[in-house]
């Protein structure tokens, strides 16, 4: 494969960004929209060509003896730190990046299309499309990165695109603060990422993924047994790099930005905060997977963080009122699922655990399916918000009659995420749970419980929106289905969610390129299905019609409910630390110190000089005799001191 296609894949979005960003003010909305959609469509086509060529051409460039290869389509020097540490910008093609190309371009195109309808009346339409292009470019650059530093570069760029898009409605203070929060929290996490890269590259003397991952043992050797606080340097590096992933993927305790990020336009949430950017952390771990494997403490860390986050987010999701927030917590929970799946996919036999690689494959599979159905759900939520002009489900209820397409697609999304056969979520979730059970029964059981919670809160949401009690305001503003620009993506994604499970994913994406044959583990599948169905049943009982159950349950554990509703006060804790301690404590005291001590010292020197000047003015008394006295005593003193000192 030549370099034209990959370069175009990156170049078209960035060109769109520049054209729409600089020239946007001179364009009509329609031109801008069409340009953006066309650009993204082209990119999508190209990405499909690349991905299909990679997976299915069977060319020896990409597959050797049944093993899929990692190929760098191009790799040019961008910045040479030292002789060895050279940052390149390149395009890597391997199973996960090819898969990600498809996911990103697909969802992005859908969102472009959808936004044409959704954002029709918003000011700054051109700017919006420019930002979408920028994001697409950054995300594509991230996934095709040939080296960790390139990844970091695009990592930052997606961060800023996210910032710009969350803050798109910049006149709303809440949007502004949400975007700021998102950026700073991820930035903080990126600090870990950066230090991780620093440590890793210092020892391995390379940024390149292929160099690093093809021989992870030698990377471990290169650290020469360097340890810090009892852990090896590589462990530190990998954990710190994962911290970066935690930030982007909103793992506990760095998850706080994601729910707030829902202040952005809903299509943006679908694109960035559900399907693509937030899974960058998962992608990162998958990318560096062999290195994680050689320091399994770091992988354990990944698993634990994932497990805790998944449960936490699921619990919180059960109590939220804002439909987008429910979806946001659901996203956190699902991404955590993928993390756990990666965490349990040990690749070498330790203490009787067999290598499976299943977790890796399953995680990637879930990434794919989740991207589709979560985007679907978000876009559906967007349609709802478009119809009723509120995020809050108390303003909804009984919408199934008014918005049939939305209802149907949303239901498909819910079924998919709940893991009901034959929807896509079932397959990927089943594989993940199988991998977890294979690792340790505890992870399996724990995550099955989370899966059940997922099914519950999703159907709680579904019923509250579409059933429950009809909002009387509909009489005045009759909600209706979205225009075609919005419906088409919904339908398309719903279709994908229905069939994606049957893709032979194991044949395509595995940790080492060798195909893996998926087989449904009956026991696991049965368990998870049962749990899901039970949870759906419970949700049906509680929320299908307006009744007293929800209130009663709430009153049963009021403390728990309130805590969960307030997301277990994480935001408050952060607020306290940042505002009270860092701003109020550190920054203010440093500013005070600067003004009063440092500056004071300088002014003090001037003051002392002035005072001395005043103090000695008596010397110049105007009396000749005093002058002569000074004169004479001065001469004597000069003589006397010199005499004493020198002789």
């Amino acid at each position, binding site marked *: 494969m030549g370099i034209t296609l990959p370069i175009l894949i990156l170049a078209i979005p960035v060109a769109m960004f520049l054209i729409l960003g600089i020239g946007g003010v001179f364009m009509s909305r329609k031109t801008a929209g069409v340009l953006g959609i066309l650009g993204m469509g082209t990119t999508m086509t190209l990405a499909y060509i690349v991905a299909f060529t990679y997976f299915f051409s069977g060319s020896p460039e990409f597959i050797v003896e049944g093993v899929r290869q990692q190929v760098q389509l191009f790799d040019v020097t961008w910045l040479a730190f030292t002789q060895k540490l050279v940052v390149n910008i390149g395009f890597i093609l391997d199973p996960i990046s090819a898969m990600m190309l498809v996911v990103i371009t697909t969802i992005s195109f859908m969102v472009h299309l959808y936004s044409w309808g959704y954002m029709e009346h918003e000011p700054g339409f051109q700017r919006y499309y420019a930002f979408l292009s920028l994001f697409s470019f950054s995300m594509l650059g991230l996934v095709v990165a040939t080296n960790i530093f390139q990844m970091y570069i695009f990592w930052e760029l997606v961060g800023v695109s996210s910032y710009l898009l969350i803050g798109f409605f910049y006149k709303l203070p809440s949007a502004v603060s949400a975007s700021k929060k998102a950026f700073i929290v991820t930035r903080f996490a990126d600090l870990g990422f950066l230090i991780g890269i620093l440590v890793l590259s210092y020892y391995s003397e390379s940024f390149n993924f292929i160099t690093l991952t093809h021989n992870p043992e030698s990377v471990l050797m290169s650290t020469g047994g360097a340890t810090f606080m009892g852990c090896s340097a590589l462990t530190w590096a990998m954990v710190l790099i994962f911290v970066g992933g935690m930030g982007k993927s909103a793992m506990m305790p760095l998850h706080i930005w994601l729910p707030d990020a829902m202040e952005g336009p809903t299509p943006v949430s679908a694109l960035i905060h559900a399907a693509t950017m937030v899974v960058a952390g998962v992608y990162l771990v998958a990318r560096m997977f062999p290195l994680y494997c050689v320091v399994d403490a770091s992988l354990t860390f990944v698993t634990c963080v994932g497990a805790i986050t998944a449960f936490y987010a699921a619990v919180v999701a059960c109590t939220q009122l804002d439909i987008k927030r429910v979806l946001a917590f659901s996203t956190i929970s699902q991404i955590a699922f993928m993390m756990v799946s990666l965490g349990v996919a040990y690749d070498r036999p330790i203490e009787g655990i067999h290598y499976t690689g299943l977790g890796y494959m399953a995680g990637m599979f879930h990434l794919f399916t989740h991207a589709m159905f979560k985007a679907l759900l978000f876009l559906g939520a967007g349609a709802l918000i478009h119809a009723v002009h509120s995020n809050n489900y108390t303003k909804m209820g009984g919408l199934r009659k008014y918005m049939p397409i939305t209802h149907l697609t949303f239901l498909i999304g819910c079924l998919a995420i709940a893991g009901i056969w034959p929807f896509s979520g079932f397959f990927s979730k089943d594989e993940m749970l199988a991998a977890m059970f294979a690792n340790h029964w505890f992870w399996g059981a724990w995550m099955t419980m989370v899966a059940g919670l997922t099914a519950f809160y999703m159907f709680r949401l579904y019923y509250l929106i579409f059933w429950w009690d009809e909002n009387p305001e509909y009489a005045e503003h009759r909600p209706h289905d979205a225009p075609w620009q919005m419906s088409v993506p919904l339908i398309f994604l719903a279709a994908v969610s229905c069939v994606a499970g049957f893709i032979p994913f194991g044949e395509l994406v595995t940790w080492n390129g060798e195909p893996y044959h998926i087989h449904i583990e009956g026991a696991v599948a049965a368990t998870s299905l049962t749990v899901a169905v039970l949870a759906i049943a419970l949700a049906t009982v509680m929320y299908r019609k307006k009744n007293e159950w929800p209130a009663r349950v709430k009153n049963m554990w009021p403390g728990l409910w309130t805590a969960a509703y307030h997301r277990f006060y994480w935001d408050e804790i952060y607020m306290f630390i940042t505002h009270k301690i860092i701003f109020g404590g550190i920054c203010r005291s440093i500013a005070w110190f600067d003004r009063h001590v440092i500056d004071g010292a300088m002014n003090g020197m001037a003051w002392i000089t002035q005072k001395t000047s005043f103090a000695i003015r008596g010397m110049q008394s105007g009396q000749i*005799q005093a002058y002569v*006295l000074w004169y*004479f*005593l001065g001469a*004597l003193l000069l*003589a*006397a001191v010199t*005499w004493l000192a020198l002789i």
Partner: protein
Amino acid sequence: MDSVGNIIVYFIVALAIVVFSVLAVKSKRILRSATYLLFVLLATAVAYFQLGYQFLGAVQVAVYAGGIMVLFVFSILLTHKPDDKSGTIESHRRVLGIVASAAGAVLLLFALFYMPLPHDTSLAEALAGGPQITMHDIGEAFVGSNRFQYLLPFEAISVLLLACIIGGVVVARKR
């Protein structure tokens, strides 16, 4: 061993210098001050004679005691009524004056006593050490232009004196 006469003369001179110096700066009447100064200057002239510089002694009497003292008396009479008193001022300054002068005297005396120069020569030896300086020698020295001859300073001081005359006239003139 110096002659008794010399010693007696020395003591008279020394006593006169010391006493009249003190009186010159302590006297409450300015005219008396001037007179005491005259005595000091005359005593110094005597010392010059004793040290063998007769011409110098003569000049001291003529210029200092004669010329300068006249100036002083003249100016005192011009600026003072006869009964005017010129007392010391402010006691703190008197203390300071004593301190300063005492410090100066002590330092100088110490320095002189410890100077690395031969100071046990007697006056007689010193007088015998060199030739008598005659008027002729002095005259030669003042108009010669060689080493140890002072034509140039002599001319230069004439300019200085001229300038001082001009200066004095400018200052003292009424307009």
